[in-house]
């Protein structure tokens, strides 16, 4: 049995790696790799210097090992927010009305990758380093808001997932027609709600400074964080919006084939 030219073309397209709809897969995997290195690097740094210089904020070594890290984090985060959000805005698609279905499908998959990287940063901020906060504050006397874990959790991890959530929001708004015509409520909830967790740091630190020095995790002082993270459930709505549109687009390319 012979193989006709059209079949050869389809077979060649199928073996092409990555396929057209996963064009950004290597960038996506690289983002996971870089973030993993950063977060594990932070944990190794804490293990190396936490006990030796992170227990007393009046110790000169604390200034060197921890406050310098705080200053670096704040500077890095500010620059990264400006660069990433700026890049996504200035490279926006100004001809969304003429977008081909195939390209729109690809962009939906890339948006899913952006949200996935966002949730990966949420994992480190909301799971690992959040519980580590409790662990560290059981061995250190809390004599500053800038403890050895807070410097990483509140001033790197929280802003980092907010920036990545903002990237996902801007990507959708500037590159996908439905998100450009209207503002997606679930996507906005999923990004803005967890952003409020960073704002709750203010209430948390105020409370711990003036009212409640201990680290009792289920205390009302932490409920701002809890309510903020409920909004991550907005991802369910993003999924439904994406699936509904993808079904339409897949039918379009199938009909055209």
């Amino acid at each position: 049995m012979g193989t006709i030219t059209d079949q050869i073309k389809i077979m060649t397209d199928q073996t092409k790696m990555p396929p057209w709809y996963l064009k950004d897969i290597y960038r996506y995997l690289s983002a996971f790799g870089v973030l993993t290195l950063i977060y594990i690097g932070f944990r190794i740094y804490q293990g190396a210097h936490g006990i030796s210089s992170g227990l007393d904020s009046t110790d000169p070594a604390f200034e060197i090992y921890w406050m310098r890290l705080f200053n670096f984090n704040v500077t890095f985060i500010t620059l990264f927010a400006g660069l990433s959000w700026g890049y996504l805005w200035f490279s926006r698609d100004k001809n969304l009305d003429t977008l081909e279905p195939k390209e729109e499908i690809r962009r939906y998959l890339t948006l899913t990758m952006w949200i996935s990287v966002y949730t990966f940063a949420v994992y480190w901020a909301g799971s690992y380093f959040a519980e580590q906060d409790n662990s560290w504050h059981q061995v250190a006397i809390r004599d500053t808001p800038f403890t050895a874990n807070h410097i990483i959790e509140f001033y790197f991890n929280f802003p980092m997932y907010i920036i990545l959530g903002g990237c996902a929001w801007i990507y959708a708004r500037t590159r996908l027609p439905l998100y450009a015509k209207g503002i997606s409520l679930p996507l906005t909830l999923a990004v803005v709600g967890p952003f409020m967790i960073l704002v709750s740091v203010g209430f948390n630190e105020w409370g711990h400074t003036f009212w409640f020095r201990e680290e009792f995790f289920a205390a009302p002082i932490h409920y701002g964080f809890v309510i903020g993270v409920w909004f991550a459930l907005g991802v369910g709505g993003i999924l439904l919006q994406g699936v509904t549109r993808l079904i339409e687009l897949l039918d379009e390319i199938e009909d055209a084939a």
Partner: protein
Amino acid sequence: MSSKLSTQTFHHYIGEKARIARAYDYLVLVLALFLFIGSFHLHFALTVGDWDFWVDWKDRQWWPLVTPLIGITFPAAVQAVMWSNFRLPLGATLCVACLSIGTWIARVFAYHYWNFFPINMVMPSTLLPSALVLDVILMMSNSLTITAIFGGSAFALLFYPSNWPIFGMFHLPIEAGNSQLTIADMFGFQYIRTGMPEYLRIIERGTLRTYGQIATPLSAFCSALLCTLMYTLWWHIGHWFATTRYLKKI
């Protein structure tokens, strides 16, 4: 006799559509994994908190009351989306499995390896049997009411017996300093926690303990009642968050 179907009903299968859908599924799976580890774990850690962190907080009164009550929230919300829209009966198990992954990583690397708490002191409890039953009841009944009443109750009632094989040994009585206490209490006294002193430990309070061995079943049934309400509330919260609305302005 066979009926003649219109060929226009069926599209020619070329494979690519399925591959794109499959690729999207995998991306969503990775997304969901980290989303629920991050979000459900933060919610759980800041509400159940110390009752799950420390072995000496795992008492007969508060631990079986608080843990299922908070633990049923995200599972109900995720079931509302996964079952209603995709007929996937795995919302509760997904959430609880993610929670287990997150808590175990944190207990090992944040508590044990960084600050040298013995792993026996900080082992997380499990909600997996409860979650599996909750998913099965939803799948079999396809009913919010039945799942809320029977699934919510089972979620709470199964919690203590499914954790007993893990933590029962720490409830053995010992005598130390002329007092009778448990091995779990001893952990708390030996490994000093600067941020969580003894006066903050909320265990076995009030007069419920005067009922002796009945204290735990009473707490579990109280939790079962509250879980039926909490399940329904969070089912609707899940639906509300899963809106597909687009707004003109924010």
